[in-house]
């Protein structure tokens, strides 16, 4: 038997449908960064001001890029965390609780251990990450061990988290004023504050986990076919638990950056992360049914959402219209980045 069965895959031409869809979120992002300056240009044109498209744009400037990135970093961390879960075909809605608890515990520990990074208080950072991991792990346990679908398990765990944060603070907010810690926001390298670089490093780490480690690849395996993965000898329970734990760590990272940005830790620190992060993940092109997408998609998704938010104010859109415009743009972005041929139906 000498015959070779297989053929090699057909060579793809440069601009295939697959490729366009793959890059659609990025194209949307680029489009948006051009559309907002266009509105600015139009506005100045009407008022008869000198305005060279893009060059004179206030939106399309490095300073504003920094602002958008600052606003993006905490959400990015949270969205990356939930990306891992969504890759597995599950969902995690516990982020608001986890972020609040991590922020509050971090602030308490930080203040009571010295109140400055130049003391033992730096231990509060690893502590917060561990707390995030533990909360994620518990979340995973409730989901896996009690066999409760992750949507319900994590939703309820989110309530528990927020409630726990409230119990800890009693409703107070804790200010973290340490100059060294706050240099995350105040010190800039090449126009961008340190927290942007921290977020970048964490994103690279997440990408590394996703593409270079067994765990990361196992997320894809579970998302692509959980029963098959199980039959192949994969310990799916373990992968799930690890996934939720890892997500918890990233939520904690989001909490740290949120505190770094505002300088305040409180029960409300986690507010609004849930819908924004999941929207960002989907807008970035990661499929809610699992197995498709990844960290870079999420980065693009978070940027899209934040560019829209920033841009709407910058072009002077009335506040009451902003929610609706965001909603419509989100739908458009998702529509563009969905491979309609690869999904048979969507719920």
């Amino acid at each position, binding site marked *: 038997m000498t015959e070779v069965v297989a053929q090699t895959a057909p060579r793809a031409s440069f601009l295939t449908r697959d490729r366009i869809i793959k890059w659609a979120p990025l194209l949307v992002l680029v489009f948006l960064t051009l559309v907002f300056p266009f*509105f600015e240009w*139009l*506005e100045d044109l*009407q008022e008869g001001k000198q305005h060279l498209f893009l060059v004179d744009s*206030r*939106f399309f*400037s490095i*300073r*504003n890029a920094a*602002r958008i990135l*600052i*606003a993006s970093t905490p959400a990015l961390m949270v969205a990356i965390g939930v990306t891992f879960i969504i890759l597995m075909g599950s969902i995690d809605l516990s982020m608001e609780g986890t972020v609040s608890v991590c922020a509050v515990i971090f602030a308490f520990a930080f203040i009571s251990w010295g109140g400055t990074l130049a003391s033992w208080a730096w231990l509060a950072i690893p502590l917060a990450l561990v707390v995030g991991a533990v909360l994620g792990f518990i979340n995973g346990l409730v989901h896996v061990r009690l066999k409760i679908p992750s949507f319900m398990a994590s939703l309820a765990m989110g309530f528990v988290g927020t409630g726990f944060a*409230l119990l800890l*603070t*009693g*409703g*107070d*907010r804790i*200010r973290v004023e340490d100059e060294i810690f*706050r240099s995350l*926001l*105040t010190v800039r390298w090449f126009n961008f*504050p340190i927290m942007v670089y921290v977020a970048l490093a964490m994103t690279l780490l997440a990408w590394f986990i996703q593409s270079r480690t067994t765990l990361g690849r196992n997320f894809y395996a579970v998302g692509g076919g959980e029963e098959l993965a199980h039959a192949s000898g994969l310990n799916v329970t373990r992968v799930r638990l690890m996934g939720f734990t890892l997500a918890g760590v990233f939520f904690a990272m989001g909490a740290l950056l*949120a505190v770094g*940005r*505002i*300088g*305040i830790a*409180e*029960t*409300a*620190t986690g*507010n*609004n992360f849930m819908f924004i992060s999941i929207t960002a993940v989907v807008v970035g092109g990661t499929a809610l049914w699992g197995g498709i997408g990844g960290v870079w998609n999420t980065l693009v998704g978070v940027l899209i959402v934040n560019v829209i*938010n*920033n841009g*709407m*104010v*910058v*072009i*002077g*859109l*009335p*506040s*009451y*219209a902003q929610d609706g415009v965001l909603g419509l743009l989100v739908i458009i972005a998702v529509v563009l980045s969905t491979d309609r041929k690869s999904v048979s139906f969507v719920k």
Partner: protein
Amino acid sequence: MSFIKKFIEQETVSRRNFLLASAFGISGAAAARMFGPSPVQAATYSDPTIAWSYRNRTNPYWNEIVSGGEAFVESLGKSKGDLTHLINEGSSEKSLADVKALLAKTNGELALAIDTNDAPNARPVVESCVEAGAYVSTLWNKTDDLHPWDFGDNYVSHMSWSDEGPAEQTARILLDAIGGKGGVVHLGGIASNNPAIERLAGLKTALLDYPDVELLDAQPADWDTQKANQIMSSFITRYGDEIKGVHCANDTIGYGVLEALRAEGMDIPIVTYDGNPQAVDLVREGRILATVFTNPHWGGGITAALAYHAAIGTFKPSEEPKEHREFYGPTIMVTPDDAAAFKANYIENVPTYDWTDFWGPANGQIQYK
């Protein structure tokens, strides 16, 4: 002004006229009475349950309110824990449902102090309290057509703050600080909340006297620090150095604005509202130019006290004049000059109030426009 905005604002003006016609016009002066004046003689109780219903524990403002409620309960020789807390988490539905549950539980033997979360929610809350024979005092939110004197003794009182005047004062401080020239921005609360509307109105009134100052933009930040932070940085992009000062609807918004400015290395004057301890510290440090202390501790205590004393029969609400049924709470301006003294008097040593001096610090009867 952006052309989008211009277009939409023209639209809005015509809309608003329509709104006024439809929602308010017809009702006109019709004194709205769902139920006639309630039963002639309301029952009193010897030991009613005392409860405070409020939005949440994540906002220091409400913590202050609650501390007043607790101080009042302690003044009766009870423990803090004897004050029942109902937290609505920003949900009118929960607010009402919790009140009903408590009414059922206590069988109406209840002295309730409440902020109903949203103005329309005040009516059903009051009505169910009246029906159950409980005594209720409201704070902040109620619609203009709802008045304690329409409900006999059981709707004891309503306290609010006239924010327009103080907000105008802080605005003047701000506008003076920028030399009466240049642009300012306003970051507001949840747009439909009364205080948010009044505080913006205060700023606008002040601006009439400062023709060289332009209100560049006003957007709702929903009382939220993070949202305020985001909007402020977008404002910086849009208006850049044109922004000479920031008028914030409350302290929590102010924190977000300060951090947005800090990220840019900008230092421009801002004024806030509420007089939270942390904000007072910031005023003392000169980072906030002024805030307005509304003494939520006293407000929280006295609202509960009014409901309680009416319930045990200490006084008969229906015999009190109208200015004792609907009145404004006290306001104290806090500026860098007096911040230290203020802190010593009100924050570090919370004054012991006489919880039976119901109307001493009050600020006159509520006026409707």
